[in-house]
Structures are given as C-alpha cells and as structure tokens.
C-alpha cells in the first residue's frame, strides 16, 4: 500500500498547551481516512499540520516528522506553496469568495498563472463536473456564488480545491453545516473522488466515518488512541477508550 503521508513522533503546542502528542500514522494513497474524537482532541490541528496551515497560527510549535511523498515537509528547502497546491483543503462552513461561480473555481488556476481562456474554461468545467455540481450550475456560471444553497456552496469549494489539481484533499467537517440530502450528495462525491485523490476527513458524525472511510483514527486529548481499518474500528476496536467513545459511553 502506497503512503502519501508518513507521520512520526509529531508533537504540537499552542504556546504552552499541548495539542498533539507523539502522533505516529501513515495516510494511504487513494483511500479515505477519517479523524474522529471529541471536540478539542486535536483533529483540526492534525489536519492543518498536513499542509502546514498551522504555520499561519502564532505561537504554534511543531516537533517531529512528516513526510509527504517521501519529502520532509518541515525541511528548510521544502516548498510550502507547492505543498498547499498539492494538498487542498475544504472547511466546515462553505466559504465561497464573493465572486461568480466561474471565478471562484478559476481563482486557483489564475493564481497559478493560467491565462488562456479556453484552458481556464475547460479546467473550471471539469472541476465542477468532478464536484458533481456542473449540471446544477451550467446555465449560471456568471452568477454570484453566494446565490447557491449551502450544499452547492460546499461542492463549489470542493470544485475550487479540485481545480488546483491536488493529490490530497483535506476536509474539516465538510457536512456539519448541511442538511441530510446535501450531506448525502457530498458523501457520494467524496467516495467518487477517492478514485483520483487521497482524502483525509475530520467528522463529528460517526455514522459518516463508518459509511465512507477506509481507515479511522481515534484521537483523545491530542493522542492517537487507535488507528485501523474502519470496519475493524466500528466492529471490534482494540482499545477500551475507542469502544467507549464510538458506542457513546464516553464520560
């Protein structure tokens, strides 16, 4: 099994406060890996570390080792911009830019220097198609993205991430602001995307983790308690703490 990320002895502190403690885990390619655990256990922190989004947070100190495709992401000559292009991110609340649907998706490629109208057009349409949104917006690409429903906005954000041609897509509770139908659409989409991308998803919804992910990591107070195949975690977890949490008997 090919690994996209190899995480070794990862420790992270916000000031004096430890948020991640000695995390060791591998993220396999073209699979969906879910991060679960109670609020504040460090899921978002771990996710953000993967594309070094934590660099933007003051007072955040990282120790340990993360390799992306074999390269140390913390080494001095590592290209962070390149990392963030290859490792895209989708957030909990859909955050479309205040511009048209088309421009939202074209934003990334334009920043990357794509100027050719035809190529841009193709890239945007392909990304919208891959995000299962194109059929719903094909006639109104010039309209403001804010006009879309919450679920459509989230798929637009996924299209925007896809347009950057990433290898990995990180998702932080991507459906927690959505209704069940919009959620089901995004889940279908995530399963679809797994063919081409590696996906790491933070979710509060354990049923969602059980439904869509291949691997599940359970975190508790900054520690990785258990990491295994999703089927194993939800049918026969090895650790009592995991069992308590997923069966809802966590105190």
């Amino acid at each position: 099994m090919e690994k996209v990320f190899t995480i070794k002895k990862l420790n992270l502190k916000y000031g004096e406060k430890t948020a991640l403690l000695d995390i060791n885990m591998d993220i396999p390619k073209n699979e969906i890996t879910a991060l679960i655990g109670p609020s504040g256990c460090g899921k978002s922190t771990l996710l953000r570390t993967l594309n070094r989004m934590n660099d933007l947070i003051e007072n955040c100190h990282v120790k340990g080792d993360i390799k992306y495709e074999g390269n140390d992401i913390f080494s001095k000559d590592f290209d962070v911009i390149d990392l963030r292009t290859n490792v895209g991110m989708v957030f909990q609340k859909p955050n479309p830019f205040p511009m048209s649907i088309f421009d939202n998706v074209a934003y990334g490629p334009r920043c990357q220097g794509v100027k050719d109208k035809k190529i841009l057009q193709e890239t945007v349409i392909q990304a919208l198609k891959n995000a299962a949104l194109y059929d719903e917006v094909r006639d109104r690409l010039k309209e403001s993205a804010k006009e879309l429903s919450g679920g459509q906005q989230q798929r637009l954000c996924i299209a925007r991430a896809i347009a950057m041609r990433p290898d990995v897509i990180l998702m932080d509770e991507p459906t927690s602001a959505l209704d069940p139908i919009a959620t089901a659409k995004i889940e279908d989409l995530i399963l679809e995307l797994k063919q081409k991308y590696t996906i790491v998803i933070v979710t509060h919804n354990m049923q969602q983790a059980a439904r869509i992910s291949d691997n599940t990591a359970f975190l508790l107070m900054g520690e990785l308690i258990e990491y295994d195949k999703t089927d194993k975690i939800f049918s026969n977890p090895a650790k009592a703490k995991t069992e308590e949490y997923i069966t809802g008997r966590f105190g």
Partner: protein
Amino acid sequence: MTYRTQFDSELDNLKLNLIRMSDLVIRNITDALHSFINMNSELAERIIKEDKLVNDFEYSIEKECMRIILREQPVAKDLRLITSVLKMITDLERIGDHAVDLSRLTVFMEKSEGNFNLPQIKLMIDVCEEMIRLALDSFVNKDINMAKEVIDKDDLVDDYFEEIKQLVVKAIKENNISADYSIYLMMAAKYLERIGDHAVNLAEWVIFSITGEHQ
C-alpha cells in the same frame, strides 16, 4: 460516568428476553427427551402446544433487535451483541422445533408395536441438554472457555449417533427390532445430533459477541 443509560437498559432487557427464551427451550427439550424415554405422550402433547411460545419469543426478540438497530445505530460490542442475539434466537427456535419433532415421535412410538431400549439415546440426550445449558451460561457469564467446552462436546454427540446407527443396523440384521422402531430411533438420534449442532452454533455466536471473531 457512562451515558446512554436508556440504551443500556434496552440491551439488558434484550439479554433477559434471550435468557427467558432459552429457559423455555431448555424446559421443552428436557421434557421432550423425558417424554421420549418414558413414552409419555401427554407430556409430548403439551410440548407441541408450548412451541408457539418459543416462536412468539423469537418474533418479539427479533423485532426488538431491529428496533434497537434502527434507533440506536449500535456499533462495536453493542452491534456484536445484537447480531449474536439475532442469530442465537434462530438456533434456539430450531432446537425448539426439534423438541416438537421428538414429541411427535413419542406419540407415534407409543402407538406402534414393540420396544427397543438403547441406553445411548439417554446418554446422547444428557450431553445435548448440557450443551444447551453451557451455551447459555457462557452467554450470561461472557465465558469463552465455557463456550469452547460446548463445541468440544459435540464430538461426543456425533460419536453416539454413529454408535446408535450401528446398533440399529445390527438389530435389524438380527431381527431384534421392528421396522417402525428402527426408523423412529434413527430419527430421534438425528434430531439429537442436530440439536448438538445448534448448541455449537449458539456457543460460536457467544464467542463472536465477546471476541468479534466467528469461526
């Protein structure tokens, strides 16, 4: 502190109902065996009537499992418990059916000519009874070793079946047994052998609910 107290009490209730169903099945099978040994067709008739209660238990426990799955979306040990209960009630119901089969046999045999005593039948009955009891105890006590004991005992049941078969064949050859009786005895032995298999299934589901592994 633990949460989901409502869920926990539903699970406790489910276990309790399984135990009640097992008790009923064990009683019926014990009575059926005695009715068979003592050729007591009155007892046999009662068992045939009681089988409806076993079926009712299976139905209501099954419904309860479905309801819990639907409403509580159980995972891990909870899911394994409910899966095991769903499978165990099927085996219990089958054992109950065999109690009825044996009772019907009793009624036939009492009416038919001749008799032929085989102590092996009584021995086979005792092992089967013990297997069902042990399987249930292993469920209540979450005791894997006890469940494994049930599985081991099945060899004994199979040995008795072979022995009875050979004795009946011998008796037929020597003209010591009536045609009716030879068939009835073999049928009884076969029902008992099947009861042993169902007891093994029960034990295997107990092991699954504890370890998550099913052989």
